[in-house]
């Protein structure tokens, strides 16, 4: 049995992390499943008593999402339409029990290729704020997640916020998850899209991310360029297989690599069709 700490505030947490190495524990929904039938021997820093890490707030040019915000809290918060996709992901994470305890920061830091939140954060151009006793730094989510279960977070750092830049009020979003059953399902493919358009319905900015088709969920830059300037009525028709060239899907128990490629293409079309 290792040491367990549950500091009441951020300063104490950072002091502890500066002095020693801990596994950080938030909602526990990834922590415990990785330890079935095993004695928990590591030192654990439970951050859930740090109230400053919770809640969603509106700042001048961005939204600040406290990393301890649960999926259910995200769903219950009134937010502009650009968050609809993220909320859709919240509805499809695990079951309601997981949504009630799993946190947005934990989902990001756990860095699963199938993390339901990450494609949305990529499509929202979100930035991770990390704090340690040494420094405060901000890193775009796109750079933060390095690989399967790997991030840029240093051992002495805590995520203190997920920052989402404010978009035009017209910005809309959509998320779709492809899985082999309805509830409690890990995705085979995920697509998240955020589209901004002008008064004529022409796309001024498109940010499209695909999850579960590479070690790190990815934005599709060439597709985003192709969508720019297009009428929102016909976005689905623009998607081409070559737009998915950067994906590196694998074959696993949930589906073949070929299926993931086909599925991603179709899911992209269907997701973009939602903007018509």
């Amino acid at each position, binding site marked *: *049995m290792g*040491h*367990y*700490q*549950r*500091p*009441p505030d951020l300063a*104490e947490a950072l002091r502890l992390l500066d002095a020693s190495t801990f596994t950080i*524990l938030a*909602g*526990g*929904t990834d*922590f*415990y*499943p990785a330890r*079935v*039938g*095993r*004695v*928990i021997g590591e030192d*654990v820093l*439970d951050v*859930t008593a740090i109230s400053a890490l919770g809640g969603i707030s509106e700042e001048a040019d961005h939204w600040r999402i406290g990393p301890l915000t649960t999926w*259910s809290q995200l769903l219950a918060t009134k937010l502009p339409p650009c968050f609809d996709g993220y909320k859709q992901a919240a*509805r499809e994470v*695990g*079951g*309601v*029990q*997981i949504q*009630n*305890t799993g946190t947005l920061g934990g989902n990001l830091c756990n860095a699963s290729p199938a993390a339901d939140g990450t494609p949305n954060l990529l499509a929202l151009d979100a930035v991770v704020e990390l704090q340690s006793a040494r420094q405060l730094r901000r890193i775009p989510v796109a750079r933060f997640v390095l690989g399967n279960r790997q991030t840029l977070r240093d051992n002495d750092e805590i995520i203190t916020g997920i920052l989402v830049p404010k978009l035009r009020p017209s910005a809309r979003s959509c998320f779709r998850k*492809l899985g*082999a*059953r*309805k*509830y*409690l*399902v*890990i995705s*085979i493919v995920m697509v998240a899209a955020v589209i901004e358009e002008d008064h004529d319905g022409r796309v001024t900015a498109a940010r499209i991310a695909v999850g579960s088709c590479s070690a790190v969920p990815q934005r599709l830059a060439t597709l985003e360029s192709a969508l720019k300037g297009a009428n929102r009525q016909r976005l689905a028709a623009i998607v081409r297989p070559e737009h998915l060239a950067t994906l590196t899907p694998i074959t696993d*128990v*949930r*589906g*073949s690599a*070929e*299926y993931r490629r*086909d*599925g991603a293409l*179709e*899911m992209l079309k269907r997701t973009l069709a939602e903007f018509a």
Partner: protein
Amino acid sequence: MLQSRDDTIALQVNGDAVKIAMPPLTRLADALRDGLGLTGTKIGCNAGDCGACTVLMDGRQVCACLVPLAQAQGRSITTVEGLARNRKLSALQKAFLRHGAAQCGICTPGMLMAASDLLSSEAKPSRKQVEDAMGGVLCRCTGYAKIVDAVMGVAARAEYGGVGARLERVDGAAKLNGTEKFGSDDAPADALWLRVIRSPYPRASFKLVGVEAFRDNHGLDLVMTADDIPNNGFGIYPTIKDQPVLAKGHVRYRGDAVIALVGPRDAVESATDDDLPIRWQVQDPVYLSAAQTERAPPLHEKHPDNVLVRGWLKKGDVEGAWDQAAHTAEIAVETAFVEHAYIEPEAGYARRIGDRIEVIACTQAPGMDREEVAHVMGLAREQVRIIPTATGGGFGGKLDVSVQPVLAVAAWMLNRPVRCIYTRPESMMSSTKRHPSRIKAKMAADASGRLLAMEFSGDFDTGAYASWGPTVANRVPVHATGPYVVPHVTAATRAIYTNNPPSGAFRGFGVPQAAIAHEALMDMLADKCGEDRLEFRWKNAIRAGDATATGQVLHASAGLAQCLAALRPHWRDAMQSRVTTGSHRRGVGVACMWYGIGNTSLSNPSAMRVGLRPNGRFMLYNGAADIGQGSNTIMIQICAEALGVSPSLFDYIMGDTDLTEDAGKTSASRQTFVSGKAAELAGRSLRAEILKRMNAGEDARLTIESNVIKAGGATLNLTTLETDPRGNVLTGFGSFDPPTSPLDANGQGIPYSCYGFAAQLAEAEVDVKLGLVRVTRIVAAHDVGKAINPNLVEGQIHGGIAQGLGFALMEEYIPGRTENLHDYLIPTFGDMPEMVTIMIEDAEPLGPYGAKGIGEPALIPTAPAIFSAIECATGVRITRAPATPDRVLAALKAAGVA
């Protein structure tokens, strides 16, 4: 700030302020169960995958296995024990009871808590709201339908009576208020813990090095090895005890038991893989395709070609028949390992009482457990007592012993109670599975559309040990034709050893695999004959007076044609709504089944005893294990009917081998038919005894008012009679062994005394761009002989459909890859279709009040009906189960549909 492991954590549980002194990272589920004794919260996976441990934290549902105890500090927790107040069930619990929404009951606490969360904010939820709110709880028994109805407040009537009544489950209240004790819920306070160390390799040899030092370093009481097991082999068949309790120097599958650690819980759990005193030498495993090549090493010396057993049936002249055939069809089918995925992992404890051993564990077969434990220990059967706990689902997977022998040996050696609870991955890696199959079949019809011949061959991957492999190999040929009249048949099967998990019993014993083949052929032949697929089946359906492939002439109760007739209106409607173009297509399929009830050509007896107490209550000594299917209730309904009294006068003892007669296994859909008949006969014999004592006529009506019994004009004060050692003043006994005959060298004979029949219709939508199949509706018509309790029969059908749907679309166990409930998928609330059940009652003369079995028949037609619907929608025949999205899309692409 919590820092040390011994801080006390204060919280509210069910309204009471409590303090728990356990380490802060203790799962809340463990804290509630082990710290507070609130074992109503169940643990199915410890990974948030099943939701059985769902409790409310500050009113919101959470998985108690994922909440650190420290995070519950100052919070308010509600468990299932908090729902019933003053021992009275809440309205929600009563609704569950009325609907039959609890079967085995292991998921029920989680279901109730998730529903409570929903109902606190939405008093009249929609179906969609119920499914969304409860989608995080898995149920393996019910198919969810009755749970949804109960939560939505759909009206349901409770009935009080014997045969035919929708009597509430007699063990229902305990399953709903959290007091029911399952395998992990109870053990003596001084029990040591046992943990089995299992092979991570499918094939390897090993040496044990430094066992004693390991034991001492870890503070263990005992490290059990193969050398500690008196007779180190178990298995279903008396002559094939090929599975070691603990492997000796060689392992044959990933999950094979190697050694067992016994000691205090911390000591047992703290040993890591690196510490273990095992030195491995890994070898190349043998799998089905390689198992029979000459170079493949035999798994067992007795079987140099790795063939455990062959099944064979021959009737008529198949070769000659092909020449007369107007139409033929052929198919090759492949199916995967399927995991039972009962939500209760195997668990129990053993204690030594002098020169006897007692094993208290979840099980489907107390009598067989007693034989296995006695054999392994070298004890007389009388020295072994099996006391079944409630069993949280079985489906065939708890027929083989799991924890029983190893616990018994440990408790015997140490003369201390010893307990064991499998983890979910351990349960999945070690337990038996449905046999994967590779089947080839060919069928022919004559010009008039009558079936003429069938040739069937099937290889079944029986894994590392025999288990029920011979049963599968022998049952499949009998059923290979499907429930049709086929004059010329050959059927050959092989059960082949591989370095895979042992394949054993799973709801249907190979018949569900075979049904995929014969039902595909029926569709193909119907098309070739230019006939409607349902009518083609109706025309060829086997009926009373017809002969089966084994030459058995069915004497009665062959209700397939009635089942098909009942589907006709649904079939016509569904055919109208087909959509065969576009991205989302709709189709309808139909499939039939038959299933011999009980053992194949083997003696299969059950006995029941019923006593009358001086206080006017009846005690049923019921040896049949209720694993959720409802035999506790059924046996009382039947016995009460035979006695002519109310079931409410009954108490019962289930399964305790010291106190009950042997009622055989809960398998082969036999309990209602075989044990039910014994219960009827026991009731009749006690009734005769009572009437004789009272000099009353045979048709006299019995009325009982406390200790006075009245019949006709006579009265009898029961307190004036002498009680026997069991405390009864009068007893009745009944036994029944269904008549069968051995099968000859060509598989001819009478393998079963009766058969269940069914036809199911499936409507499905196929998303041809993504390979997704959504089953929207299933109409299930089942000939059950007589529905003793229609609520329970419907529950069996719903649950069978759910498992059949999983088998068809999503379930595939892959050793080392899907040893948990998030990689191994079973259907959730949102995957179930609308289900319509139709009960056909073509009475079976041998059965109790005409009843026969339903457990396995419910599952068998579902997968072929779904595959038929997919074909109807897309023109593409699925030949490999499960039809996962990637396989469906690949098949559609190959056919040019997608």
